[in-house]
């Protein structure tokens, strides 16, 4: 399978995370990246994009396609294979007042550039006593499910969330892609914008105009009274299915999508758990040390007296991501595992 095909695969409609109106325009998750980039680059000359094969090829997943023809090689820059220098390029340009978007093809590659991300971009403002602003957006494709194996499938947001100075953004649908990417690029702090590579073809309603979704504000997708389900990134889809299924069985889920995991909208989550008394957190990343651990810890710190059962976590097992589809399908959490985990609480 070529990555291109993923982007061009059959789209499946889904509701947007905003109030949905079937007559409104639908857009794909990957297409939302291009559209947002193009609109922002038209209105703000200080925005440019750099990364491997983002230009002539439009990105290996195609979500930068068309940008270089419109904006030229200077604002849509094909770089060498040099992830450290790609982040450095972004940092140096951001300090100079530009608003770079730099791409690390696969999220696993943040490890190649971790010093520039965690020791430089994240800390620079603080180390410099506040003198710098760093309007830098790092885009990268995370998530499993394409048989891309252990080095091209990881969800490593927990590593980034632990580093003060970064914001970490995980859009769950095309609507959020547009609203959150706009906020990231307009934001004066370094952000990591994590594109889920299995979502690329999915469509939902997305406004034509640019709009912002504030970083740090979660979204209640579905209100419910029995259990709070916190789902991250693509897991929102699986959690929706689980909630649907469970509503037929008399369990009423309140589904929360934090949208950004750093900052984390813990107030929204705690408020919900205070009502439902139960919580389950769902993410694609490895369970041990995943963001679910932080969320669970904060829930029990702040809503201890409301909890009727232990907080559940549905996440990946403690192994690298296996190549074989036969294993990978069990590796990534799905609606069924979420259902089981929720039922266990009662």
């Amino acid at each position, binding site marked *: *399978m*070529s990555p291109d095909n993923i982007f061009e695969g059959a789209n499946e409609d889904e509701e947007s995370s905003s109030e949905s109106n079937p007559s409104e325009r639908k857009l794909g998750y990957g297409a939302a990246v291009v559209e947002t980039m193009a609109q922002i680059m038209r209105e703000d000359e200080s925005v440019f994009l750099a990364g491997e094969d983002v230009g002539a090829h*439009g990105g290996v997943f195609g979500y930068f396609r068309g940008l270089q023809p419109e904006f030229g090689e200077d604002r849509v820059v094909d770089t*060498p294979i*040099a992830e450290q220098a790609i982040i450095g390029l972004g940092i140096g340009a951001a300090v100079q007042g530009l608003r770079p978007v730099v791409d690390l093809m696969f999220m696993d590659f943040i490890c190649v550039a971790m010093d520039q991300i965690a020791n430089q971009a994240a800390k620079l403002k603080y180390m410099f006593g506040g003198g710098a602003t760093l309007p830098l957006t790092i885009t990268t494709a995370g998530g499993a499910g394409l048989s891309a194996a252990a*080095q091209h499938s990881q969800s490593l947001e927990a590593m980034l969330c632990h580093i003060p100075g970064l914001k970490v953004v995980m859009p769950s649908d095309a609507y959020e892609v547009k609203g959150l990417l706009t906020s990231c690029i307009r934001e004066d702090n370094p952000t990591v914008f994590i594109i889920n590579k299995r979502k690329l073809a999915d469509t939902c309603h997305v406004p034509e105009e640019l709009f912002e979704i504030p970083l740090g504000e979660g979204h209640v997708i579905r209100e419910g009274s029995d259990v709070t389900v916190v789902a991250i990134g693509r897991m929102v889809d699986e959690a929706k299915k689980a909630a649907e299924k469970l509503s037929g069985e008399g369990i009423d889920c309140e589904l929360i999508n934090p949208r950004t995991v750093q900052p984390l909208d813990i107030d929204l989550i705690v408020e919900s758990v205070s009502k439902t008394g139960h919580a389950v957190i769902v993410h694609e990343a490895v369970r041990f040390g995943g963001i679910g651990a932080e969320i669970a810890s904060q829930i029990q710190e702040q809503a201890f007296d409301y909890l009727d059962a232990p907080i559940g976590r549905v996440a990946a097992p*403690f192994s690298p991501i296996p190549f074989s589809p036969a294993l990978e399908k069990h590796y990534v959490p799905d609606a069924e595992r979420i259902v089981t985990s929720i039922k266990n609480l009662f």
Partner: protein
Amino acid sequence: MEITDEILIDLYKRMVRVRLFEEEAGRLAESARLPGFLHLYVGEEAVAAGVCGALESQDQITSTHRGHGHLLAKGGDFNRMMAELMGKATGYCNGKGGSMHICDLDLAMLGANGIVGAGVPISVGAAYANKLTGNGLISVSFFGDGATNIGAFHEAANMAAALSLPMLFVCENNEYAEYSPRHKTMAITDVIERAAAYGFPGAIVDGMDCVAVFEAASLAIEKIRGGEGPMMLECKTYRFYDHVGVKGTASDYRTDEEVEEMRKRDPLVVHETRLIESGIMDADSIQAIKDDIQKEVDISVEFADQSPFPELEDMLVDVYTNGESS
């Protein structure tokens, strides 16, 4: 150095093994019978064959995302490789690694790698072990032109030089990194200019000719084994298929004419012509080699097809050596 007929035939077989296996894998990928990403080596066979043909069987190699060629040229097993590409339990990695992580420690093949450049430091480690134990082996790292732009390559090359390790650097310069032509990502024409920056010698080789590669590699290997420290070969080569899979659709990063032009230098054809013209083989015996190998390829598809997938309980096996897990 004298190149015997035996060697010439051996080099040819190595190339055919890669070619026929990969053509088959390409067909399977096109018909969606292989999961994941497949990076084909077709067109570059002379490099792997020429280098591996010059190695001792226990000399170590590390490879790239384009790794089938290296392992097959070193003697890799069709069955286990095809099974791995299909994600089967009988595969080289028990189905856990796939195309990008093919390895065979018995053949001292320390792994393909999904991270560009990441194999090179690992080769340095193998080379260090060779030096420390005095086992007389050398360590070889294959990497692309694009990989020479990444930090891991640089650190490894410098360290190999600083510690004077028995290591051969083999750059497969196919003029592209994914969809980016070399001239856009580096300001030099010949990657070999980098060898001087580390203080070791290097040579440019026609990477479409297995004999040229074999000769250059043999010469280098002799010196390296003799304790002269690392060396680099830059093999000018070309991949016939797209970066991933067989034929991409997205961009016109190279022209059909260019591909056609390079296909005229198909390393198999170049070598077949030589074998025939020098009277070592005739068309029939060449065809016989191909038929035999194609049969093996067919068997591997059958083997892989009939092999079971790994079971759920295999998921947590081999995360650690003792099978512990959190």
